[in-house]
């Protein structure tokens, strides 16, 4: 029972983690809670669905297409709705993000013809493996492997590529990075794109796992993923991963322990607890007051 719930929790958590990464990278560089990120994830799921149903491509192609589509959408969002607000008061881009979020939800609802869920076709024959007391489904395994691969890929990009170095520099000190000749606009675009690609992959994976997607699917998942990013320590990539998995596991065990009617509050309660004990999250660096 315990192990089974752990598997459930880690699977759920790894989808949170994929989305949390987008929040954490963007926040790390421009200190913006990109509330439209959940909608990017939703668009990923819908793109995947269209690819599979209309163009009849296989699952991996659909996922790549979704990642690409999300990247484009996110870069456009950043250009249109956030870039003009780079030097505005803190709440302006936040409101803009909420506007984008409403816009995208409505747009997809209109295109889809209503807010109710669409079935995601069974793209992979789902077999179940039994290992002692634990049951794995093939999709679960795929989610775990793909999520881990994507996170490793991300970590390598940030650590070893030139643009990754630029990202780290920009997140360390935006103004100085700009003075050092780093094209920060490009870095920000790239960050949005990269985060969106991961969210897009997350959307397709979740769609495939639960076989159901709808235009408002990004709202709560997005919020919880943001919680995961904060719990892990915003700006920290391993933090986002661990935060996601931590929240996923906590939610699952909360339900198992009989708090099922409080499930929606578990992520937020943990968030508050973690912040009160460690204000910058589990993996965040302590803030030194600058005078």
């Amino acid at each position, binding site marked *: *029972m315990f192990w*089974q*719930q752990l598997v*459930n*929790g880690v*699977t*759920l958590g790894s989808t949170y983690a994929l989305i949390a990464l987008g929040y954490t990278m963007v926040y790390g560089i421009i200190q913006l809670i990109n509330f439209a990120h959940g909608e990017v994830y939703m668009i990923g799921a819908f793109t995947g669905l269209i690819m599979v149903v209309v163009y009849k491509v296989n699952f991996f192609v659909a996922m790549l297409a979704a990642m690409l589509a999300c990247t484009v959408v996110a870069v456009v969002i950043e250009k249109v709705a956030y870039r003009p607000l780079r030097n505005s008061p803190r709440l302006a881009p936040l409101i803009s993000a909420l506007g984008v979020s409403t816009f995208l939800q*409505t747009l997809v*609802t209109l295109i889809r013809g*209503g*807010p*109710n*869920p669409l*079935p995601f076709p*069974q793209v992979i024959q*789902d077999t*179940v493996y039994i290992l002692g007391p634990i*049951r794995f*489904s093939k999709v679960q395994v795929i989610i775990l492997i793909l999520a881990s691969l994507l996170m490793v890929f991300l970590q390598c990009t940030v650590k070893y590529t030139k643009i990754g170095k630029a990202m780290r520099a920009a997140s360390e000190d935006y103004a100085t990075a700009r003075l050092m000749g780093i094209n920060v606009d490009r870095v920000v675009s790239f960050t949005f794109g990269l985060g969106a690609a991961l969210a897009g992959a997350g959307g397709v994976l*979740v769609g495939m796992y*639960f*076989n*159901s997607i*709808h235009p*408002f*699917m990004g709202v*709560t998942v997005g919020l919880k993923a943001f919680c995961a990013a904060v719990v892990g320590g915003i700006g920290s990539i391993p933090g986002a991963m661990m935060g996601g998995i931590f929240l996923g596991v906590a*939610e*699952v*065990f909360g*339900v*198992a322990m009989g708090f*099922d*009617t409080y*499930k*929606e509050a578990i992520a937020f309660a943990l968030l508050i607890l973690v912040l009160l004990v460690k204000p910058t999250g589990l993996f965040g660096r302590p803030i030194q007051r600058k005078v």
Partner: protein
Amino acid sequence: MRKKRFIFLLTALLAVAMLTAGCGGGGEEAAEGDTIKIGFLGGLTGAHSHYGIETLKGMKMAVEDINAAGGVLGKKLEIVEGDHGSNSSEAANVTQKLITQGVTAIVGDPTTGITKSAAQICQPAQVVLMSAGAVGTGVVEIGDFIYRDVLLDAVAAPAVTKYLKEELGWGKVALVTTTGLPYSESLTSIFKPALEEEGIEIVAEQSIMEKDTNFSAQVTELTRKDFDGVIFTGYYTEGALFMKEMRKQGLNQVMAGGDGLLGKELYELGGNAVEGSMVYAGFAVDKETAAGKTAEFIEKYKANNDGNIPDMFSAQGYDAVMLLADAMEAADSSDPKVFKDTLAATKDWEGVTGTITFDENREPIKSPVYLQEVKDNAFVVKAVIPIS
């Protein structure tokens, strides 16, 4: 610099003034003319718009049918649409607006919560409110202008429970509720005593959330329990996904639930996992059993909607308009103060959602109840249960 600011301010003020002026056009009194206005209250946009859209579809079909047959009292029916965007405070505005637009009755809202707040406005304004979906408690109690044409679970659920026990031999069940969904919480509170009455043991209770997709934790909790079936009190989306998760984790029981599960999404989303699951409703949607008005309605709906079957919202929306029209004819008046009494006296009225009688508390009693199961991507009637 300062001049610019002033100009901006001026424009801002002008914009407000224009908006306010626009307000004047909104609420013109309806000219007493050759139409009878019926308001639609529901979300055509926002998170719950699906229910609203379906209700309106049904209403439009009813109005078409009535007007084609010459209208009511020699006048044509007209629907005044009030979309509240699934937002309750807007719903109060919309209700008030519909009333100022001169509607004699309002059909809506599909959800209990908004119906209750709309009822608080309709009752003192003396406009009939016919909810096509509010199943929670405390709705018609608000006043004698408030009605609903839903299947009353308080009557149907015990009958179905009896059937589950006696015909299917269920002795132990798992009860799954959608927390935060009034329909589901109310149905659960009806099922609990009914199950106890029949001596069916509830071995596990689990809660899920509306719009959630991941039920692995709840299902894992069920894997260590022994039960004959699941009583699922929520809507079709979550029902389908819950059953899928059960099959993934190796549980093979079927589920039974109310008309919240009645929708093609149940088997579209659920596929094989919902095969054999049961849904009770006031009307049957399969070809063999559906007869008369119901069959006609289904055929017409399918023709207009790419062959999809109607769900309870569209069917109840259709019946709501029909009920109102018949009450007006019977009262020979479109004055809500008059026809509300003939409406209350409705007895054995044949609608597409079954036969409706309003009891002394103005609650609808529908008989019989159709228990339908999913077979090969369709609902098939399994049993017809009469309600005494």
